[in-house]
């Protein structure tokens, strides 16, 4: 098992390094300083972008597609849970049974939501039209990984498969579409700065 654990660790470190390279490359690019006089507050804008601005009711798009949005949120919570689970995987046997059960179910739910997203990409007209092969691969890779994670939490027989799949998934993160996890943070910061500076967000609550 140690070999498989080392394999997963190698994949994890490769993914982390790849993400760091991406981060460094983007940070090396110019960032145009904005010298225009402030109307609002960029820091408040950033805070809004990561909190109230992410709420399902904050945007017309998420209000219209509430179920799809919540599915996506649940899926991503599942992914972060899976990453946490991977980090503590050598100590799973030490977990209280209730926590172990909860972890398994959280990962299962994440996998179900992932599968729903994968199917939506195939079935739904707009999503199919928007998707590239990498999109399909990424969602199914992560979904299967979460499903196998759940299986491994409950049954040690899955551990070898789990670590192999973890290595592949983690190593793929910086290579394909999954790296948007890094750019999400950049994007929300830039969003908050831009609209915060101009006093568009946060905006006093008024009837829309």
């Amino acid at each position: 098992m140690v070999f498989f654990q080392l394999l997963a660790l190698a994949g994890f470190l490769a993914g982390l390094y790849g993400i760091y390279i991406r981060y460094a490359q983007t940070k090396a690019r110019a960032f145009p300083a904005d010298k225009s006089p402030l109307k609002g507050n960029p820091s408040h804008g950033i805070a809004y972008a990561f909190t109230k601005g992410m709420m399902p009711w904050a945007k017309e798009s998420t209000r219209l597609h509430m179920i799809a949005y919540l599915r996506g949120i649940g899926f991503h919570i599942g992914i972060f849970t899976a990453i946490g689970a991977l980090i503590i995987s050598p100590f799973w046997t030490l977990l209280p049974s209730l926590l172990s059960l909860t972890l398994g179910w959280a990962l299962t739910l994440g996998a179900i939501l992932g599968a729903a997203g994968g199917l939506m990409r195939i079935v739904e007209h707009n999503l199919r039209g928007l998707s590239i092969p990498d999109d399909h691969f990424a969602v199914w890779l992560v979904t299967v990984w979460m499903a196998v994670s759940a299986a491994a939490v409950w049954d040690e027989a899955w551990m070898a498969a789990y670590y192999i799949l973890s290595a592949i998934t983690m190593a793929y993160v910086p290579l394909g579409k999954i790296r948007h996890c890094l750019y999400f943070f950049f994007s929300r910061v830039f969003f908050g700065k831009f609209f915060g500076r101009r006093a568009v967000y946060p905006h006093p609550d008024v009837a829309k």
Partner: protein
Amino acid sequence: MTETIELALKTLEAQLNQPLETALEACARCGLCAESCHYYRAEPKVKHIPAFRAERLRSVYRYEHDFLSRLFPVWTGAKKLDEPTLASLTEIAFSQCTLCRRCTVNCPLGVDTPLMMRAIRAVTTASGTAPEILVMLADAAIEKGKDPSFFKDMFLEQIAEMEEQLRDITGDPTATIPVEKQGAKILYVPLAGAHTILPPAAVFNVAKEDWTLSIFEAANYGVFLADVNRAKQVAKRIVDEANRLGVKEIVIAECGHAYASYRWDVPNWFAGQFDFKVRSLIEVLADYIRDGKIKVDPTAIPEGVTYHDSCNLARNGGLIEEPRYVLKNVVRDFREMTPNRDQAICCGGGGGLVALAEYAERRIAAGKPKAEQIKQTGARIVVAACENCRLQIGDLNERYKLNVQITAITDLVVRAMRLPKPLPGHEAERLFEGEEAAVVRE
């Protein structure tokens, strides 16, 4: 690789900063942005989803910058830039996106799709494939700035004629339209046409403002081309004029892109040489009303009035409540469109699209959601604080039989000021008010 493609790629590379790379990388292609776009609302097809449009540029970017895409371009949809792709990018950026940023505020990740459309515009302008009319208009403005004496005498003659009208309207024989007044507090920058000079002049005179009129117009076609070099040259005319006259602030006419560029971009382009405050005329009107510098009759306009948020003023400019404050002081029956403010639907006229006759049909078709919004309010007057929006809503009025009157905020303010005579072209409205107005005046 042809010279055009080489130039295009070189320009794309030069554009690639942190925000642009983030916009190119962050999209998860979830499709939630679809309904945020007025093109998609008008015609729900995949090609009108903002993420789909942006994907055209992403495919080129990936081919140049992504390891996996270079090995397996099909896997990531990467595409080598060639002449047909460049032509298609040009068409997308200039005819299928008004840079309104409604998709950005509705994206769960905040992907700045208009930033990518601007990058395409910059690429196509640099490689000589941008719409010729926009290039010509920008270059004409630059030429005008090089030798103002070429048009100045004629301009001053027109202003002198307008001054006569102004005295007639205000009933004040001393009312003036000062031009190049040294040391004035405000430099007011109009658009081409008396309709953006006479009403503000009436307001400034009644408010006893220390102002002067710019000899240049606020419009900047370099901005639409995303050509910073051209845009800077156009803006420099006004920056130089303001510096020469020693004004304290520049006030921009009711114009979306001009306000957004002078308020948010020009201070960056001319850092160190730009110490003026920039305000929209709307902000000035709001202050005059708040400070009692002008008296307005809140019952002056009895018709139902609705306000269209220009994307450059509201979502991209932060001017959201100021126009509403002004309107609520001069209008008896104010009706909001739904949605409004930061979520307002673009009318379809922004981004320089009203100047592109070749895409007029597409533009008017994409304005259908706005036309429906207007219809739902049942208002008789549509106010827009942007010239391009007014032109577009004018076209929508005709196409979708809205039967509305389209006007600027200042025009309504002047009406509510109850001056002795109406603005030219507004005589019919004064008649429409009939006895009711006379009673209020008494």
